[in-house]
């Protein structure tokens, strides 16, 4: 394989990685946002403080992912964003609202603080729901028809549930006392819809696309791939068992969060295996959608600088702000 032929694969990998990191990282802070109405005023402040140093850096991974889609696969960018025009616009409204609410809620007068807390919740929910809708349509090949809309609607509910599960597990790790106990209960509530949603995606994608069906259900691939669903189920069951145990409040408070991340990563690999080499399933391969090799080489240089930089500050900020969160204060 020549380097020119490999370039689209490199960018597909980079884009996939950005999207995976985005879904995991912004997933937990959107989840925390969606849990806000269930907490007391003091708990709300701690919840916001627990995501304070990270949330906006988390969103840069989305910018990176969509940026790579635009510059490396412009044709796919055109097809995908034209098809998902409205949900993208709604997601942007959601992300705008929560970004502003995040800042203003700490500076607002008491009577207005409730409004900003509510907008923070609404913005988080709107962003997560639109992303679910987009994911649902994307993995069924952006086709129209009521079945596809119904499926997208189901994912539009399942993805926020997955974010809530991730957010609750984040809070178990980052908080203590009463809030931590609440977070365990919230995680348990979100667990069932997540299992249901993942099951639904696993059934729907092979059903919609003959390519995916063939890829998963022919021998010997089926046996070779079996570890992916089995490990996913084990991770989900393990997370549930941890949530049922009192030990989750102690030293292993990070374990449910790690297990749910494992579920996300496994789901991602399953999806990547289903899609590759398509960037829009059964319609557009990564080579058909890619920019010219000359353009990709220039972009690769920029990427080699920016991606390690983003990865480095991400790791750095999580190191600096490790440990349990305390109440919010600007100082």
């Amino acid at each position, binding site marked *: 394989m020549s380097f020119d032929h490999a370039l689209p694969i490199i960018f597909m990998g980079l884009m996939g990685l950005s999207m995976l990191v985005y879904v995991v990282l912004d997933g937990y802070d959107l989840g925390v946002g969606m849990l806000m109405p269930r907490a007391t*005023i*003091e708990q709300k*402040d701690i919840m916001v*403080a627990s995501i*304070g*140093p990270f949330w906006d850096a988390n969103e840069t991974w989305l910018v990176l992912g969509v940026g790579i889609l635009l510059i490396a696969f412009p044709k796919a960018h*055109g097809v995908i*964003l*034209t098809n998902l*025009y*409205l949900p993208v*616009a709604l997601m942007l*409204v959601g992300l*705008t*609202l929560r970004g*502003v609410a995040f800042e*203003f809620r*700490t*500076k*607002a*007068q*008491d009577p207005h*603080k409730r409004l900003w807390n509510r907008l923070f919740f609404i913005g988080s929910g709107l962003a997560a729901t639109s992303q679910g809708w987009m994911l649902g349509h994307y993995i069924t090949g952006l086709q129209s028809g009521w079945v596809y809309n119904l499926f997208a609607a189901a994912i539009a509910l399942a993805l926020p549930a997955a974010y809530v599960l991730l957010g609750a597990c984040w809070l178990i790790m980052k908080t203590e006392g009463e809030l931590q106990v609440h977070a365990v209960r919230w995680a348990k509530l979100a667990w069932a819809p997540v299992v249901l949603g993942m099951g639904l995606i696993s059934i729907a994608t092979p059903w919609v696309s003959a390519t995916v069906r063939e890829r998963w259900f022919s021998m010997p691939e089926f046996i070779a791939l079996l570890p992916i669903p089995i490990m996913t189920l084990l991770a989900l069951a393990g997370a549930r068992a941890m949530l049922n145990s009192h030990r989750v409040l102690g030293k292993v408070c990070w374990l449910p969060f790690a297990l749910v991340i494992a579920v996300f990563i496994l789901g991602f690999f399953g999806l990547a295996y289903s899609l590759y080499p398509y960037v829009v399933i059964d319609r557009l391969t990564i080579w058909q959608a890619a920019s010219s090799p000359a353009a990709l080489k220039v972009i690769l240089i920029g990427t080699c600088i920016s991606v390690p930089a983003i990865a480095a500050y991400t790791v750095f900020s999580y190191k600096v702000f490790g440990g349990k969160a*305390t*109440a*919010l*204060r*600007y*100082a």
Partner: protein
Amino acid sequence: MTFSGWIATVAGWYVTEIGRQPYVVYGWLKTADVASNVASPWIALTLTMYVTLYSALIVAYIGVIKYMAEKPWPVEGVGFDQGPLLIPEVPADKAQTKGSAL
């Protein structure tokens, strides 16, 4: 003078964007040739959404700036214009609580 910086920035942006028309890349690519084929009612809807949202946000923004400029908290030797933004302690019955850095 308060908002003159903004107006200058936004005006500069308008001059570039409008002055470049009908091109999106000057001399190379016309705006009409690269516009998406999203149905115009959708465009109208989202434009209304953005304008409404940002109108509301600018009202809130000016409100917050005014509130902060009036320095509602009893402050000793600390101002909004001195280094990082500080929110000093307020009575415990108010929602602000103290703790470590954000």
